[in-house]
C-alpha cells in the first residue's frame, strides 16, 4: 500500500506539470497585458515598459516559466499583480469558504443521492424510478445560476428561512455559518445529486444481475439486506469514481454559486483574477484546483481498496 501511494504521488507529478505548462502557455501566449492593467488609464508607453520590466514580463517565456516553477518548488507562489498581496495569503484566505461548501455539498449529495439511486434501481420501471430519474435529468438541465436564484427567491425572500447571501466562518458564529451554507450547498448539490443518483442506479442495476445477488436471495435474506449489504457495496466503485470526476463539475459550479450567493471563495477569486489578468494568482489557483482534483481522485482510488478487497495495489 505505501508503495502504491508513493507511486500514485509520483504519477501525479507529470499530471500537474502538464497543467502547469498548459496554463502558463495559455496565459502568456494570448493577449492581455497585466502591465496595462496596473498602469491604468493615464500610463505612458515608458511607464508600461518599466512596469513590464519589474514584473519580469520582458524576459523570454522559458525563463519566466523556469523562474515560476523554481519559485513554486520553494513554496513561493509570487505576488498578486493587482493587489500586491502574496498569492499564498490570498489563496489561504479564500480557501475555507470553498472547502466548507464543497464538503457540505458532497456530504449532502451522497446522503440524498445514494438512497435515491437505490430506490430507483430497486423499483426499476415503477413511478418512483421515473420520478427519481426525471429529477436527476432535471438537475442536469437547469443552469446553476437559475437554481440559485430560484432557491433564493423561494427560501430567502418568500419564506425568509435563510439569509440571501454571505458567508460567516464557522469558528466565528456557527449558527450563521450553518444558515448561510444551506442554499449554496443545495444549489451546487443539484447537479451532483443528479450525477450520483444516476450512477448509483445504473451501477446497482448491473450488480443486481450478478450471481452473488441471486445467491443472497437463495439464502433467504430480506430484500433490504440484499440491497444494502450485498449489492450496494459492490456497486460503490463506479459511484466513487463519479464522485471523483464529478468533482470537476463541482469546482465549475462553485464559480457560479459563489457569485450568486456572494461567498468570498476560490471560485470568485479565480474568475476575478482571470478577468484582471492577475497571472500569478490564476496560475496558482488552477494549479491548486488541479492539485485538489488529483488528490481527491487519489483518495478515491485508495477508497476502492477498502470498498473492494479484490483491488490491491
Amino acid at each position, binding site marked *: 500500500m505505501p508503495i502504491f501511494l508513493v507511486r500514485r504521488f509520483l504519477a501525479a507529478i507529470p499530471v500537474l506539470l502538464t497543467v502547469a505548462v498548459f496554463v502558463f502557455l495559455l496565459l502568456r501566449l494570448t*493577449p*492581455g*497585458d497585466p502591465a*496595462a*492593467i*496596473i498602469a*491604468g*488609464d*493615464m500610463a*505612458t*508607453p515608458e*511607464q*508600461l515598459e*518599466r*512596469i513590464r520590466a*519589474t514584473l519580469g514580463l520582458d524576459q523570454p517565456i522559458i525563463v519566466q516559466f523556469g523562474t515560476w516553477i523554481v519559485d513554486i518548488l520553494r513554496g513561493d507562489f509570487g505576488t*498578486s499583480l*493587482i*493587489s*500586491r*498581496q502574496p498569492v499564498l495569503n*490570498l489563496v489561504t*484566505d*479564500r480557501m475555507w469558504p470553498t472547502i466548507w461548501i464543497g464538503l457540505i455539498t458532497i456530504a449532502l449529495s451522497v446522503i440524498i443521492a445514494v438512497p435515491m439511486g437505490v430506490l430507483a434501481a430497486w423499483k426499476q420501471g415503477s413511478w418512483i424510478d421515473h420520478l427519481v430519474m426525471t429529477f436527476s435529468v432535471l438537475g442536469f438541465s437547469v443552469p446553476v445560476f437559475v437554481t440559485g*436564484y430560484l432557491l*433564493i427567491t423561494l427560501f*430567502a*425572500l418568500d419564506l*425568509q428561512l435563510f*439569509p*440571501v*447571501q*454571505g458567508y460567516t466562518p464557522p469558528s466565528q458564529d456557527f449558527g450563521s455559518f450553518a444558515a448561510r451554507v444551506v442554499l449554496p450547498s443545495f444549489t451546487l448539490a443539484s447537479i451532483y445529486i443528479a450525477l450520483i443518483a444516476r450512477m448509483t442506479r445504473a451501477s446497482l442495476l448491473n450488480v443486481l444481475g450478478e450471481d452473488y445477488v441471486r445467491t443472497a436471495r437463495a439464502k433467504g435474506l430480506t430484500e433490504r439486506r440484499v440491497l444494502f449489504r450485498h449489492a450496494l457495496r459492490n456497486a460503490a466503485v463506479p459511484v466513487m469514481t463519479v464522485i471523483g470526476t464529478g468533482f470537476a463539475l463541482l469546482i465549475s459550479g462553485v464559480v457560479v454559486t459563489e*457569485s*450568486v*450567493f*456572494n461567498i*468570498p471563495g476560490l471560485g*470568485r*477569486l479565480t474568475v*476575478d483574477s482571470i*478577468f*484582471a*489578468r492577475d497571472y500569478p494568482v490564476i496560475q496558482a489557483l488552477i494549479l491548486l484546483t488541479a492539485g485538489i482534483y488529483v488528490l481527491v481522485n487519489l483518495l478515491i482510488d485508495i477508497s476502492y481498496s477498502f470498498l473492494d478487497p479484490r483491488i490491491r495495489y
Partner: protein
Amino acid sequence: QTITAVMHSGLRVLDPVITTAHITRDNASMIFDTLVSLNSDFEVVPQMAEYEVSEDGLTYTFTLRDGLTWHDGGEVTPADCIASMKRWMERDGGGQMIADKMESLEATGDNSFELVLTEPFPYTLTAMAKVSGLALFMMPERIASTPSDQAIEELIGSGPFKFVQEEFQPGVRVVFEKFEDYVVTPEPADWFSGAKEVLVDRVEWVTMPDAQTAINALVNGEIDYMESVPVDLLPLLETVEGVETQVLNDLGSVTIGRMNFLHPPFDDPQIRRAAMMALNQEDVLTALIGNPEYYQVCGAIFGCGTPYEFTDGSETLTTGDGVEQATQLLEESDYDGTPIVLMQPTDVVTLTAQPIVAAQALRNVGFNVDMQPMDWQTLVTRRASQAAPSDGGWNIFFTNWVVPEVSNPLANVMLNGRGDEAWFGWPTDEEMNQMLADFGAAEDEETRKSLAEQMQAHVMENVNYVHLGQYFSPAAWRSDVLSGVETAPFPVFWGVSKDEG
C-alpha cells in the same frame, strides 16, 4: 456600530497614485485627507491646510492646521506633504503640468511650506483639489517616498477612517475603523470639504458580483447601503419599507465613444463626423439606463450642471436627426466599406449597452461593423495597441467617466492632442493643444469660459470623442437605520450615523 455597504466594485489596488480606478480613490478618500478640497460649488477651500497665493500668482504658501496626526500616531509635517505632492506630480496629468512650471517646493517652517512656480498657473489649486482619478492625498513621508511606479504597501493616512489591514480581503471586503484622533475642521461638511465627522465605529465595504443578490440583501436588511443600484431594478426597492433610494452623485457620469485617429477610416474627420451623426444620445441612454429620470440628454462635453456647460454643435447627438446627413457624408467620403472594429466589453454591466446600440446605428448609415466581444481587461490591453485594426488594433470603443473627470478641460484626458502621447486614439490636434495651454494660463474665468466654448465647438467639429450623454446611478440605503446620507460625487461615510433599531 458598523455600516455594511456594497460598493460598485471590489477593491484590489490600494495605491491611489498608481491607478485611476474609482474604488481605489473612494477607499483612499476614507483613509487619507487632502490639503485643499472642492466644495459643491466647485470652489477650492482649505482642508488640511490654509493657503495663500502671492500677488504675482507664483508662490503658494500652505499652513497645516494644528494637531494633525497620522493613524500610526506620528505628527503630520510639511515634509510628509511635500513628499506626497512630489509623488503625485509624477503620475497625475495636472500634477505634471504643475511640475513643469515648478521652481521649488520647500518647507518654510514647522507647519508650513511653499510652492513656487516659474510662471503663473491658476489651475494649480484646482488640480490639487480634484476629486477624481489620481487625487492628491497626503501620506507620511516614509510611504510617500515609494517610487511612483511602485505601489505603496501600507495605508496610513490622516483621514477620518483607519484601514484595517488584517480584515482586508482584496476584491471582497474592506474594513475601516473610526480614527479617534481625527481633527475635524470647523466648517460644515460639504462634499469633500469641511467636517468629516465619523459617527459610527466601523464601516465595512463588501463587494457583490451580482446586483440582484445585493438588492435582496438590502431588502432583507443584511446590508445597510448600496452604492449603485441598476436603474432597472429600482422598482424592486420602491415598495420596500425602510429603504430609500436617491441619486447621491448628482453630477453623474458621462458615457463616451472614442475613435482611433491613426487608422482608416477614422483618420478622416469627415468619416468621424458621419459616425458621430449616426449616433444619438437618447437611444444609447435608453438602452443603458432605461428610466428617463436617471439620464440626461446633454450636448455639453464638459457635462451639464458644470461651469463649462456649452452645447455648441451637439444637435445631432441630442435630437437624433443626423442619420440622413451622416449617410450622405459617408457616401461622399472615401469610406471603402472596410469593417470597423468595435470593441465590446462583455463583463462590465455599464459598458455593454453602448456598443450594441452604436453598432446598429453605425450600420444604419452604411458602416460595416465588426463587433468584437471581449472582456474589459482585453479591451484595456487592446486599446493600447496602435496596430492596424486588422492586426489586433481597433477603430472604436466606449467608456464612462464621472463628470468631475471631464468637466475641467485640463483634467479631461480625451482632449489631449499630442499624438502618440495622447490618450488612446492618439489624435494629433495642435489647435486643441493651444487652447488647453491658453486655458491653463488664463487669468480670469471669462477667458476660460470662452476657451471652453471654443473647445466644445472644436470637439464637435473634429470629433475628438463622441459625447453620448449623462446618467446618474441611484444609491440605496436602509433609511430606517442610517441617517445623514448626503449627496457627493463619490460615497462618503462621514456624517452618517447608524441607529441599531
